């Protein structure tokens, strides 16, 4: 099996989709000849032509709005937003259009649409490139939100997203694009949407995270295992909306303690929803308050101070230790 980075795995998934389904179209800013600013669509225009893979004018609302029309028509548009922070320019087309057409038409018109967008801290990008935006989309009805933490899941989730009959926001953490290589099957396979994974089994405490933070959580878990001798279960949400409440509840019921980690700011973030779910489903198992490790409620920090803000293994380990106290 080839050892692929996430960029290669995503590129391969898109290639397979273009090959197998004439309805699949890829478009956005710089996705054609340039192959995307991160090369996720590299070579696809050369192979499938400008009809299937093309650059658009620089207008996110236009990109998503036309994609909605194409999806209603019966195509399977897979537009790219160059950085997730710029999806705000198309917020209305996502929040009130792509996600509402099914209801508005009494189910006659549907919008099978996958919006891909990179995001994430740790790579020293200019303002508004690094912001984690998933919580805004988690509160939206009619869209699914996916954030893979590794190349294997990335490919399988992207296939599942394109096969899904409803809009999916597919967020790709920039720090993971090339930092991990993994065995990835060259053929098409799906990783189901809406299913979390237990990335590491453990018995004393549950750490719940996703995306790049998952790996920081795993590092923290290792630290705790080594230094404190405690056994940490790490849950990778993979799909942010809808949340896999069953997996969360099963793990926290077992361990009785939890730390939730997200890179986004704290107020109204994904961690808050996870805590609300734990409160509802397994409060009686809970031995300590669930800890939240997140960025503070500030704009995403400028590059030189990023590291002081984005959750680190040390911060997560501190939260784990606090939560492990009797």
């Amino acid at each position, binding site marked *: 099996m080839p050892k692929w980075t996430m960029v290669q795995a995503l590129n391969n998934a898109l290639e397979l989709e273009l090959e197998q389904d004439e309805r699949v*179209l890829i478009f956005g800013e710089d996705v054609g000849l340039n192959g995307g600013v991160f090369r996720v669509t590299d070579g696809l225009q050369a192979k499938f032509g400008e009809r299937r893979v093309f650059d658009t*004018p620089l207008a996110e609302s236009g990109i998503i709005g036309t994609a909605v*029309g194409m999806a*209603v028509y019966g195509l399977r548009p897979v537009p790219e937003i160059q950085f997730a922070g710029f999806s705000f320019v198309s917020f209305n087309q996502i929040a009130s259009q792509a996600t509402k057409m099914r*209801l508005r038409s*009494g189910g*006659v018109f549907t919008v099978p649409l996958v919006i891909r967008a990179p995001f994430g801290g740790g790579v020293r990008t200019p303002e508004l490139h690094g912001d984690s935006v998933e919580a805004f989309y988690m509160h939206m009805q009619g869209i699914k939100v996916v954030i893979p933490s590794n190349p294997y899941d990335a490919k399988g989730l992207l296939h599942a997203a394109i096969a899904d*009959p409803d809009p999916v926001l597919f967020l790709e953490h920039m720090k993971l694009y090339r930092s991990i290589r993994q065995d990835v099957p060259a053929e098409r396979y799906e990783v189901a949407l809406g299913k979390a994974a237990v990335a590491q089994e453990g018995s004393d405490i549950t750490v719940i995270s996703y995306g790049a933070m998952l790996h920081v959580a795993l590092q923290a878990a290792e630290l705790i295992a080594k230094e404190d001798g405690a056994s940490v279960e790490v849950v990778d949400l993979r799909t942010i909306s809808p949340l896999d409440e069953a997996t969360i509840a099963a793990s926290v019921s077992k361990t009785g303690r939890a730390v939730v980690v997200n890179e986004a700011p704290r107020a109204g973030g994904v961690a808050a929803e996870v805590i609300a779910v734990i409160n509802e489903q397994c409060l009686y198992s809970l031995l300590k308050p669930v800890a939240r490790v997140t960025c503070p409620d500030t704009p995403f920090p400028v590059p030189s101070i990023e590291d002081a803000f984005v959750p680190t293994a040390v911060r997560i380990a501190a939260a784990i230790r606090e939560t492990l106290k009797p």
Partner: protein
Amino acid sequence: MQNQLDDRIIQVLNHEGEVAGELPELSDDELRAMYRWMVFGRVFSDRMVALQRQGRSNTFAPLTGQEASVALATALQPDDWFVGSYREILPILAKGVPPLAMLETYKGYIPTQYSREAHTLPIQIVLAAQMPHAAGLAMAIKYEGKPHVAVGVCGDGATSEGDFNETLNFAGVFKAPLVVVVQNNGWAISVPRRVQTAASFIADRGPGFGVPSFVVDGNDVLAVHKVMADCVARARAGDGPSLVEMMTYRMGAHTTADDPTKYRPEEELAYWKPRDPLLRMRMYLLSKGLLSNTEDEQMHEAVAAEIQTAVSALDAMPPTEPSRLFELVYETPTPQLVAQRAALQDIGD
């Protein structure tokens, strides 16, 4: 009176119903059918307003004065797509959406009567947001190599939104088989056209996006049909998009919730009254002997009866089951939605 006639405004019938330009190719039956739709629009709108007053329907936006909009549909084939907003009810009906679907919507039901075959998107509420959808449909038509077109329509107010301009731009760049239509009725609720833009005509937007543009007397159904037929033919032939500005007038209130006496000068309505698109077409048909006063009356009665049938059908319909909403968020409800539906039903019991 910003809508006064101008050299650029294409006209076929003047407001006396006399031929003032080149007639489009339409058979006598087609002309009568067109007029019947205009009557339908007038009666339907009045009926909706009445239903709202009786508390049997929610806020409604009357289309009175804008019945020439039917020609936005008459130039289309069944497989062409139509995309509009609340003011485009008449072309939406003429394109094949059953009146019952509109009645359901305004009753506050989840519609059950849309059909894919009408190739018409539901009414858009977020102004101009439907326009990129029309462009996307046109791009999809082109992608599939089909000989169809899409028509996207919005009001003069909506042209100020970014989405309207982005639509023109995408259509131009991709040479999409799209006709962008602006129903310039002089007002956006209380805001007059001159506050929307400093341009002389909204059609002046076209060249800035490489899109040919046309201004048409929007109360002259034959002129609208002719311009649309031309633009649709060009789009179908692969010659790309056009922009059409219809100069028309909102003779009624913005909606049943609006009171235009707060802001509208009386003279303006007086200017437009004799320019009523229905009057004009009726005078033409009468003068051509294609319609008699008796036939006209019969037509009004038949239309009213047809609408009454739809209203009765609506009355006979079971109201929307709350649980239906849960089926229309995703193709398969999420576990959360399944649980929430069950919980709501428990409380309901």
